[in-house]
């Protein structure tokens, strides 16, 4: 039972890294970006290709996946996304679905539709077991590693958003673009940076998750719904909201698939609908925000 809880937490943490970038672009910048999963897929493929073709060690691949997707995110933000910030949501939805379709077909064309496998280094492969019987806790080392990375990232993000100059600029730009610009904040740069970091985090999540979630060209569509659930349920007030939502979702999904495998994703979707009908703006709403 504890093992399920542990796996659920690890899964939730992974979803959190994947989705937190989306929660920033979607929640703060008010852009419905369904193409977020495509950035995650890019990160995953960067890792897989570097490891398979060039023998780069796994730990080196992770930052490269982050940088690669961040760069791509920055380029796309500057060229395609920026003109759409003030368009209606319908346009944003159509645009990002289009982008996702293109990403899926492109990955299929260049890399093939087969599932890619990540070779983990030896020290991440083991599993530690504690306790006995029903309360036995089995911890895969890789899952422990994921939890550690996520915890570090969460603390780091929280620090950047609340304590640094960039964080306060971002919050100012989000609350009122005109006033922020009037105060001498370069709103375009702040949004560019934020979008790049968000995409980078997605890429990192994709790289970390390739082993757990599986990686093939349909990745963006398959997991899009999960990212969206995290953001919609968690609200966008802080990063604690999405974090808790991701953990809840991860545990519910793992436990649901373990105890009632017949129902599969049913548990998660129903949970989401109930929460959203109960609290349409997510569990945690930012006071005084948009």
């Amino acid at each position, binding site marked *: 039972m504890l093992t399920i809880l542990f796996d659920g937490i690890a899964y939730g943490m992974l979803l959190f890294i994947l989705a937190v970038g989306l929660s920033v672009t979607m929640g703060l910048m008010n852009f419905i970006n369904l193409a977020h999963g495509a950035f995650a897929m890019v990160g995953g493929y960067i890792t897989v290709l570097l490891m398979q073709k060039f023998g780069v060690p796994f730990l080196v691949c992770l930052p490269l996946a982050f940088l690669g997707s961040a760069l791509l995110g920055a380029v796309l933000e500057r060229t395609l996304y920026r003109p759409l910030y003030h368009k209606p949501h319908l*346009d944003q939805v159509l645009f990002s679905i289009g982008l996702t*379709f293109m990403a899926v077909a492109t990955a299929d064309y260049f890399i093939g539709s087969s599932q890619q496998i990540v070779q983990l280094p030896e020290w991440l492969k083991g599993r530690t077991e504690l306790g006995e019987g029903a309360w036995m806790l089995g911890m895969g080392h890789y899952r422990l590693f994921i939890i550690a990375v996520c915890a570090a990232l969460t603390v780091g993000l929280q620090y950047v958003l609340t304590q640094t100059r960039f964080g306060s600029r971002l919050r100012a730009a989000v609350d009122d673009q005109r006033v922020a610009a009037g105060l001498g904040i370069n709103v375009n740069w702040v949004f560019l940076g934020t979008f790049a970091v968000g995409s980078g985090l997605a890429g990192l999540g994709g790289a970390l998750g390739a082993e757990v979630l599986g990686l093939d060209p349909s990745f963006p569509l398959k997991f899009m719904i999960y990212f969206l659930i995290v953001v919609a349920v968690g609200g966008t007030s802080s990063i604690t909201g999405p974090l808790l939502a991701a953990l809840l979702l991860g545990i519910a999904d793992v436990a649901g698939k373990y105890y009632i495998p017949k129902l599969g*994703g*049913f548990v998660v979707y129903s949970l989401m609908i109930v929460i959203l009908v109960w609290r349409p703006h997510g569990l945690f709403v930012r006071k005084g925000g948009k």
Partner: protein
Amino acid sequence: MPHTTTSPSQNTLLSRARWTWWEVLLWALALASPLLLSSHALIINEIAIVALFALSLDLILGYTGIVSLGHAAFFGMGAYSAALFAKHFMPDPLVGLLVGMGTAGLLGALCSATILRGTDLTRLMVTLGVGLILMELANKLDWLTGGADGLQGVVMGPLLGRFEFDLYGRVAAWYSLTVLLIVFVVARRFVSSPFGATLKAIRDNRLRAMAIGISVNSRLAVVYTVAATLAGAAGALLAQTTGFASLDVFEFHRSADVMLILVIGGVGWLYGGVAGAIVFKLMQDTISSITPQYWTFWIGLFLVVLVLVGRERLIRPWTWFGAKGKKSGGAP
């Protein structure tokens, strides 16, 4: 709504619903098309079904401003219930159509409670979630639906007890076109009624609509149910004319495609769905015969260009080289 007197404002509303000669000609051509292009009857049937589906989405997206990514839920519901009804109870197409519409409408009425609150994002998520839940159900209840293999062995009886469905799909095409025409007429009357006018008021400014005494929630619930019923009709037609229902009817790409179709043709214009369906199906047919596997890439590119150029401008090519001097990407 009592119709005892005809006020001037009512006349203005109704005048928009009046038929012009070119429309009559258009529909006559459409109904003659299975004869004129008899080798393409199958695709004409498909176009009519997709057009009906897009029309139903237009009622909520174009006329009421509800963004939905889960309209396939109702389409699939109609398809499965019509197919199951034909298999287990009665092979008559018209009764099956009504059953499909009824179940989809019922589902729509239930789901309408979920779209009343929240923002665009919440609605996107909830509609998407409903679609996914139904797909999951259809997949897992394999004793009823055949699971991932789909529901096979659906045999339809003759239409009106006289016209057998033939292999060339000519009867099917006429059947679908007729249903489309009837629905179109009803939908047009619906959106140009005072009720339809209040829907547009809600779309343009919900708060103001509430302030002038429109009961927003009940109207949204009604239009959502109506749209769901019509989507169910489209699904039922598909299942009946192909004799098959599979998980594909619930998939995300169906919801995305129908949104795209509507946007190509023009949102908030009943012919938009029809025009979009024709363009989309022909495009799909052409592109996927050239590159069967990567057709999604081109549709993605089309979507991106469409949004960047501007939805309004794409269907009006003469505005491409306008004051802003923005170049168009054109269609792929």
